[in-house]
């Protein structure tokens, strides 16, 4: 029986992603570690401050995992929420985990916590890279309705592997913010098809910003996460000069090849898809899309 990742909440995602019954939560809701800042805005708190963190197994392998609850404050990161992620990343190193899985669904910095939220996201960024440096792979999963935006969109690309569904979006500024700043001509935030062509899983996969794309199914995400953990075992998880120079070249190439284009579909054609194939992209199921993309995508 398939379970939609998109429609599942954070707790459901973690429970079904990991081996049944294996998940042990750190600072569970009963501990009531809530936001110290939301009260002054008369906003409700959540007993887990919108993120579930803990340890479990994935096909028997010890993994640490976090799932952001997109329903609470858009999954945005406040002081406690960010500290839970940092604590998880550090504990994973200490306990010798195989990997950390970050199920990200977030608008980025929680504006209700402004300065504290910004510093929190920055600390998560450093913690992700520190965890990688100490030999523990960090794998990001993006498939919730809020996408992964803001400073957390940056954190996602600090991970070893990014796994997305077509429904997922990965970007920095949301379309509404861009439309507000620079007008509807710049980005019509109500053009959903454009939004997904711009920041959705398929586009990111073609560009090389996501390494795996799966159907909207928790079981598919589980299989992809397991494959990612296995892949990461066979190489170093840390940053290398060679790796970053290759990424520099890839990102420079990206501007050279596509920098004057304004429509994502034109990028797909520039990658080698025919005009017809490019138009079909949004309609394809995950497997068919992966098969098509294999010949054309940038290997990120």
């Amino acid at each position, binding site marked *: 029986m398939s379970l939609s990742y998109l429609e599942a909440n954070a707790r459901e995602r973690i429970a079904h992603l990991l081996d049944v019954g294996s998940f042990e939560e*750190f600072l569970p809701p009963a501990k009531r570690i809530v936001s110290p800042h939301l009260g002054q805005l008369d906003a409700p708190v959540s007993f887990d401050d919108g993120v579930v963190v803990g340890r479990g197994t994935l096909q028997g392998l010890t993994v640490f995992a976090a799932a952001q609850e997109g329903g609470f404050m858009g999954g945005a990161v406040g002081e406690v929420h960010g500290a839970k992620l940092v604590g998880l990343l550090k504990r994973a190193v200490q306990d010798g985990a195989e990997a950390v899985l970050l199920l990200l669904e977030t608008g980025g910095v929680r504006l209700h916590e402004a300065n504290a939220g*910004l*510093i929190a996201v920055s600390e998560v*960024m450093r913690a992700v890279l520190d965890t990688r440096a100490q030999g523990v792979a960090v794998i990001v999963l993006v498939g919730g309705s809020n996408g992964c935006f803001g400073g957390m969109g940056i954190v996602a690309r600090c991970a070893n592997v990014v796994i997305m569904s077509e429904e997922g979006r990965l*970007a920095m500024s949301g379309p509404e913010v861009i439309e507000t700043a620079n007008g509807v001509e710049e980005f019509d935030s109500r053009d959903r098809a454009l939004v997904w062509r*711009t920041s959705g899983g398929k586009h990111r996969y073609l560009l090389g910003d996501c390494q795996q794309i799966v159907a909207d199914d928790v079981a598919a995400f589980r299989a992809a996460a397991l494959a990612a953990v296995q892949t990461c075992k066979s190489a170093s998880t840390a940053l290398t000069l060679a790796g970053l120079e290759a990424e520099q070249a890839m*990102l420079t190439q990206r501007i050279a090849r596509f920098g004057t284009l304004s429509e994502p579909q034109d990028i797909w054609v520039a990658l080698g898809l025919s005009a017809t194939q490019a138009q079909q992209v949004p309609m394809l199921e995950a497997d068919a899309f992966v098969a098509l993309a294999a010949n054309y995508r940038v290997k990120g």
Partner: protein
Amino acid sequence: MDWQQLVAQLFPQGHSITETAQFLSGSAQVDGNTVTVVGTTGHTPIGIEIALAQAQAILATVRQHPGRPIVILVDTQGQRLRHRDEMLGINSYMAHLGKCIELARRQGHKIIGLVYDQALSGGFITSGLMADACYALPQATIRVMGLPAMARITKVPEERLTELAKDNPVFAPGPENYRRMGGIAEIWSGDLAVQLQQALAAVSNQDQRAALGQQRGGRNWSQRVVTAIVDGVDVQPA
């Protein structure tokens, strides 16, 4: 403060920093040693090109000048808000810059950030905030977002946010709040060259901001929550 005045004060022993389209790069002398300088000016938005240019300068330093310290000068209005940058994956360009700074740190380069004018959110999070320590001038503005936009997104009335922004540490923009929260290490005034030398001498490659925020009373929960999870215990009283 304009960047030429800034670098004249920071580097009295001399520098070769140039500006191209609001991107600053070059090298300078500090206490008899050469440092790489990279940064931005003119409150520029950070788009994919300028993020890449900063990353390039960092990588060149790691490749060609082992152990050379790096100084990041920050003046930005935040990330560039354009469809094109999002389409091309500005989050990846930003992450790339952050990773290059992290690599430099791992390879033993000391990295100091300095907000000398404006720093907003996305323009700051993978540059100044990825340094070993980030400092600020007293007149710097550091903030997450402009109040009207924040009001629109949070649905909190602008008047309420304006009130909070006056003296509430979480909302008030400015180096003093960031300092208290541990995000900024210190605020520099007086002899900037001496402050920079001291900063380079004091560098730690561990992220100490949560502990600092706790010590200074600006953030009372971050460090306690991290410790509780790492130690497998309840959150301890403040």
